[in-house]
């Protein structure tokens, strides 16, 4: 299908972009890489009066270190992360996740910020950034603010972003040299959204142990009991405790009974691959 009519705007600065959004709160959609918004426009699922292209805003296309935090510009593409073009603060986790997103042609345009703002629950970055306890920066008419990704996402395709706000960068804390991560995913076929995905990040030096389960239709969930069991102890010795913890977690995140064995297997595989 062809999109319904809209006006295309390409502001030259972040301030201009925010100004455009402020003037058209209900009628405008922000487009970064267009890989999520594009299909929605083509299917007429989204019918904005204006599309605001932010993909060329310099500020959003850079990444930089600030102390122990990597700030990744919202318009950095999945391919740039896949190709190792940003500083590696996650001991290779971000590169590994990037590789598995959709297909290269989509990764060449799709952006980290776009993916998080769109908040499709099955998007790999959501689960990843929550596992890393990352934050993101929002810029709007009231200036800039930061929010944890875990708090930013409130439901499937739902975030706390306001009408005249833009996601400007993602803030990822540097993992310690002793940190380990594990990643497992099941999709019907490679490139599809995952039916189940799990990322485990254990960083004893930063007192952090996080196991996150990603699913198709609900936002990623922190597996609290599993995370606690893992904190500071080698996974091999924890088989029984983990098994119990996973059951507790699957129940509290209200996983569909028909999917329990799948989610359990994926979580365990992520944990078993902790390196």
């Amino acid at each position, binding site marked *: *299908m*062809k*999109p*319904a*009519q809209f006006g295309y705007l390409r502001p030259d600065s972040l301030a201009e972009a925010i100004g455009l959004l402020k003037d058209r709160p209900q009628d405008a959609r922000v487009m970064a890489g267009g890989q999520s918004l594009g299909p929605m426009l083509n*299917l007429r699922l989204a019918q904005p009066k204006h599309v605001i292209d932010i993909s060329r805003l310099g500020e959003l296309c850079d990444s930089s270190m600030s102390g122990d935090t990597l700030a990744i510009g919202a318009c950095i593409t999945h391919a740039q992360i896949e190709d190792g073009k940003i500083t590696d603060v996650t001991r290779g986790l971000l590169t590994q996740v990037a590789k598995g997103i959709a297909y290269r042609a989509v990764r060449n345009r799709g952006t980290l910020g776009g993916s998080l703002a769109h908040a499709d629950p099955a998007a790999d970055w959501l689960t990843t950034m929550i596992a890393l306890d990352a934050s993101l920066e929002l810029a709007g008419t009231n200036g800039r603010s930061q929010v944890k990704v875990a708090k930013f996402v409130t439901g499937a395709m739902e975030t706390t972003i306001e009408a005249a706000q833009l996601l400007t960068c993602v803030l990822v804390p540097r993992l310690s040299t002793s940190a380990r991560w594990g990643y497992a995913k099941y999709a019907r*076929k490679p490139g599809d959204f995952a039916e189940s995905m799990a990322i485990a990040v254990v960083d004893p030096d930063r007192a952090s142990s996080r196991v996150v389960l990603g699913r198709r239709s609900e936002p990623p969930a922190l597996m609290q009991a599993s995370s606690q069991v893992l904190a500071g102890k080698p996974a091999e010795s924890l088989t029984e405790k983990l098994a119990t913890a996973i059951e507790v977690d699957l129940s509290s995140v209200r996983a569909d009974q028909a999917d329990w*064995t*799948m989610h359990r*297997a994926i979580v365990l595989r992520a944990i078993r691959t902790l390196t």
Partner: protein
Amino acid sequence: MSELGVGASLPRLEDERFLHGRAQFCADIALPGTLHAAFVRSSHAHARIVAIKKPSGSEKQVYCAVDLAGLRRIRSTAKLPGFKPSDWPVLTVDKVRHVGEPIAMAIGATAAEAEDIAALVEVEFEQLPAVVSMWDALAGGAPLVHEEWGSNVLVDMKLEAGDLAAAKSAAAHVVERSFRMNRMHPLPLEGRACVASYDGRLDELVIYVAHQLPVPLQIGLSQILGMSQRRVRVVAPDVGASFGLKTYVESETVCVAWAAMKLRRPVRWIQDRYESLVCDANCRDYHCKVIAYADANGRVLGMECDVTVDSGAYSPWPWPAGLEGGLALGNMQGCYDIRAFRGRAVNVVSNKPAGQPFRGVARPLSCCGHEIVMDAVAHTVGIDPLEARLRNFVQPAQMPYVSITKKTLDSGDYGAALKRAAELIGLPSIRARQKQAEPDGRLIGVGFASFYEQTAYGTGPFGYAAWGIELVPGMEPAVARLTGDGELILEVGSHSHGQGHETVFAQLANEVLGIDPRKVSVRFGDTSISPAGTGTYASRSMVTTGGAIIEACQLLQVPIIKIGAHLLQCKEADARIRNGRVEGPQGSVEFAEIGRAWYHHPEELPADIDPAGLTAAAGHKAYDPGVFAYSAHAAVVAVDREIGSIEIIDYAIVADCGTRVNPLLVEGQVVGGFSNGLGNALYEESTYDELGQPTATTLADYTAPGAPSIPELKLDFMETRSPFAMLGMKGIGENGAIGPPAAIANAVNDALRPLGASVYETPITARRVRAAIARARSGGTA
């Protein structure tokens, strides 16, 4: 056999244009002043139209059924007992019968504008309860898709042969299995498309359509539009695959043709993917219950089956729904020597798109029937499934073998093919492997599928005429014409949308005339140029069109030799054709000189030359019962018992289509067909909710196999020449798609057997495997 003729793996001559982006699909055809059509479609599965409100200011650009003046009805019939015909509405008249049914056509200057106008059309519906599944259709008190029928049964077919009572009483074992093959979409990468215009010079409708059957479409359009056939020109240009989707007269084609004639402007409609997934999810959708009666050694003495086919809302024209059920019955006994049979096939209608045949047609269903039950017999008797099949196969010595369903299995060695397939996967080592636990905890399984495919069948009582359909395929034509510069034009009635006809038919010309295939043009798809065959379908073109080409080229040999001998001043008996020349005892002449003599200097021709000259027309009469290709598939799977996912760790196909004119292209057909069958087995499903709303409407939801999904196939070919086809050829187009659902289902169930679990539903998704394992764990029946 030569380098360039039969048996040569010649790379395709037609590839150039596709590799350079110069192909001409319908959407690539640019006519000045083209308008675009978009369709207003039903958002309900079953509803009466109360009112249609056209958008103010654009009323003249919107057409409903009442506006399409002069159209005749489309009604497809068959002379099967009890068959109920239905009118196919070009645009909805009274009620819609599936989501996506076209209600109105909007015309705009661009596709986007046409969609804008369509979006503003308001339709008021009175919703009716929907018949979503085949069981809904058969339930007592079900809403009626066609009220005048009194039921939702389109046709109820029975087939009985042999002494089933005797088989039952002699049986030591009775096994029963049921399975479900869910609705799918044929998913050619190019959707449906057409561009229509009025040719003022010739006073003709010219319509470019992505289509497999140009002449039947021409006939259908001429009847519906009330125009003489000679004024309707159908051109099927490059077509981006079809697999059976682009075979019939469709609403959009009629509307666009009508609009072009009315507006005297070209009108174009290019289907988009969403539209296609909603409107064309129209194949498979079967249920089958099979019972086998076997003796103590596993010899199947008799078989029963009950098949239900959900054909969607309407019968398409010219070949109505109902054929699939009958085909399923007729092929249910497979390659086995089974002498008693009772079968029933009930075709129902439902509030879903009208069913159309998809690669393999009913054979993937019948293959599942005989192969799943054969595995069940094997396990009950306690023998390997390979052995059970070998004990039941029709043997070569019995051929030609007339089955109880009147199929004449003409040639082949089913046992040899299956043994070879088992050898390719290393069956003994897999059986040994299955006795150990896998380090990663997965379960290993092996499954076989042996089947035949009836190809290139003909007109008569064992062919199409048996259905009593309106358009029965007849002789297949070909015209061969030598040009003034000694090259060849072949005009044929089939249509190539990926099959490589421009190469394989040139190879046949090389075989007969010795002409270099690179000097042969193969022309098809244009009813003004091509002789009237029915098109390409049912794995027939190589045999039927191929046969006609051989005959036409043989006819052409006569004037070529005559003129050649005359130019060489030798006796005709001493002249022969070799390598594109005529050779005599003292020298030779090229075809170019022969052409020059005919076209430029007829005064130099022999006095008794046939005035028809260097053009030869021939027709091929297909052997009515058809010729039977066959294959053996062997699948090895690893099943993850926690996730339920299935990996195919090995897969072998041994195929026999008789003489292979171009082995490279035959392999392409088998591997391509396999990928469709794999999709059927593991991935593809057109799903509906309880209101009949389609829920797999984007390619994110409808999963087609990608490159990582295809295992490294082990392929082997046997060549048992058919005694009933020229050069011993048989068809192969659908073969690869028939075996995978059965082979993979058998392999998965072999893997799950230790858990007491089984899955008899395609696609075999991880979710279905998990559910089966959970059921078995909680004590449910396998």
